[in-house]
């Protein structure tokens, strides 16, 4: 553990009535980065974020956030973090201003400072025109922005974002990404959970893929995509099982996995040079090719490669 690590998690384990939700995970988050937990619903992301934010008691392992142990000094951890919850956790009948005011008072920010910061944060998330609006009248994107402003009001060292763009339309989502990048550029470390591949890919400095309570792989988005080799070929045939056998002889093929629409084949060299060999081998075995497609790897491929299933199919 280095001094630049703002979150240090060692052998974290958590069970609910015998069901093990998190199985001995370890990871570090460096000061100043955007770190993502990527995984399907039920993978253990929320459990982990709840322990890191002191909402769930620590059962096993050690967790330090901003230099403080979550079990021994939860109060110090709470002072150092900001949280944007998964759902729109806003009091419907308070106004935008009252929502911020309530939060500032919870953290004992002195009156003048509180007023100054609320003004400033509402400007940052472009909600100052809505300050007297009750939160129930805000759009989904505005609600999420208000939550970000609230999470940042206390000037936290780490901002926790639990599924920050879930349920938002694509345009609003891209704006949220801009806000998150802006927050990070201003010096706040961001710990984020998401089940959107492109979100993790676009925003993160580093990603851990989590599934069934375990971290399957960690790295920068580039590293993760590179571990899959250079390219991926998607192949749909008349008989995927036989086609898979026929591909066995090609040395450049690193792996063949079943995807919902056919086979996805990762290739360790340049895919366009390997393509003719794949076509020959499958045709040679007397199997019809319905479609063939060559792509650079995406985070979806990374997920399928490491977990053996597609994230989107796990249901949202």
């Amino acid at each position: 553990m280095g001094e630049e690590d703002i979150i240090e998690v060692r052998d974290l384990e958590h069970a609910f009535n015998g069901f093990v939700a998190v199985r001995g995970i370890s990871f570090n988050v460096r000061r100043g980065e955007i770190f993502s937990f990527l995984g399907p619903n039920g993978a253990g992301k929320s459990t982990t974020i709840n322990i890191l934010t002191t909402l769930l008691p620590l059962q096993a392992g050690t967790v330090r956030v901003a230099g403080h142990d979550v079990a021994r000094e939860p109060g110090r951890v709470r002072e150092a973090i900001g949280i944007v919850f998964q759902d729109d956790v806003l009091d419907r009948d308070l106004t935008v201003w009252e929502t911020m005011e309530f939060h500032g008072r919870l953290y004992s920010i002195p009156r003048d400072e509180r007023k100054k910061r609320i003004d400033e944060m509402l400007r940052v998330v472009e909600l100052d025109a809505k300050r007297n609006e009750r939160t129930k009248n805000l759009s989904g994107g505005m609600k999420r922005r208000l939550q970000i402003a609230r999470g940042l009001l206390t000037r936290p060292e780490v901002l926790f974002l639990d599924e920050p763009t879930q349920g938002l339309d694509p345009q609003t989502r891209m704006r949220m990404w801009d806000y998150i990048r802006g927050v990070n550029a201003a010096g706040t470390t961001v710990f984020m959970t998401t089940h959107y591949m492109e979100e993790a890919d676009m925003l993160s400095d580093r990603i851990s893929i989590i599934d069934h309570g375990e971290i399957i792989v960690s790295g920068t988005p580039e590293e993760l995509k590179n571990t899959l080799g250079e390219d991926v070929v998607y192949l749909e045939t008349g008989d995927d099982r036989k086609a898979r056998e026929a591909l066995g002889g090609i040395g450049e093929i690193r792996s063949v996995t079943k995807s919902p629409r056919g086979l996805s084949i990762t290739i360790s060299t340049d895919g366009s040079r390997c393509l003719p060999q794949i076509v020959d081998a499958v045709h040679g075995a007397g199997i019809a090719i319905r479609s063939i497609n060559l792509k650079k790897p995406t985070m979806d491929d990374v997920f399928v490669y490491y977990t053996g299933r597609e994230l989107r199919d796990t249901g949202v």
Partner: protein
Amino acid sequence: MSTTAWEFLTIYRREMIRFVRFRTQLFTSLLQPALWMAFFGVAMSSNFNQFTSAIPVPAGVVPVDYLTFMAAGVIAMTTLFTSLFGGISLLFDKNWGLMREMLASPMPRTHIMMGVSLSGITKSFIQVGVIMVFGALLGVRFFSGFSAARLALAVLGIFAFVGVFSLGFLLFSSALSMRLESPEGLQGVITLLTLPIFFVSNALYPVQAFPPLLETLSLYNPLTHLVNGIRYFALGDDFFAVGAHYAYTTADVFVSFAYLAVFAAVMYLLARWTFQRAVVT
């Protein structure tokens, strides 16, 4: 940035904003005790006054009519209902995820229950004020013949009793809300509790005529002690009502207040224990 001792005022403020903003809640909470007085009170008093008019009043004791007698009970009952339901906003906070914001903040958890309780006490005070004013219009004769100084003392005394009683039940309600999952569950438990607490008490009738077991039970009922306190301050230490002679010594009233204070202290410990162990995600 460190916590002060005053964060519970933050919770209090929010509860009061909600109270004023939910017009229906505000309106019904003020109307309900007035309706009790107007219908139950007036109907029962015409009956009771008929039954008890035949009972001779001992010499030198002030007779009190039924409406005036039961007005103290209506104050107590309203305080009981409002306080038992006072914790319900915590249950909504919990179910709507709003509780997490408070639990993840550095504010000590005891401030959540104290803020909610303080707002509940305020609501009870407002209701008690409304009942006293509305009661006076209907013919309730509280504080009759009191000097200005004695009147001020009596009102303060009533509010002190209402405050400490209310605190105990609000803390109980808060603890219950933290443990239960649904508002329906809370409603069920509260309904179950209000019946014995209300009827095994001296709110509407004298306990002297109860069977011995019920009479003993009523002496352990916090509501009985609240009603004692209110009657002492509103009607004096020696009066006659519903065929029974009431005489309170200063010691009696002190014991009643102490009983309610102990009740509130026990409920504080229960609520604190519940809040410290509560996990809400």
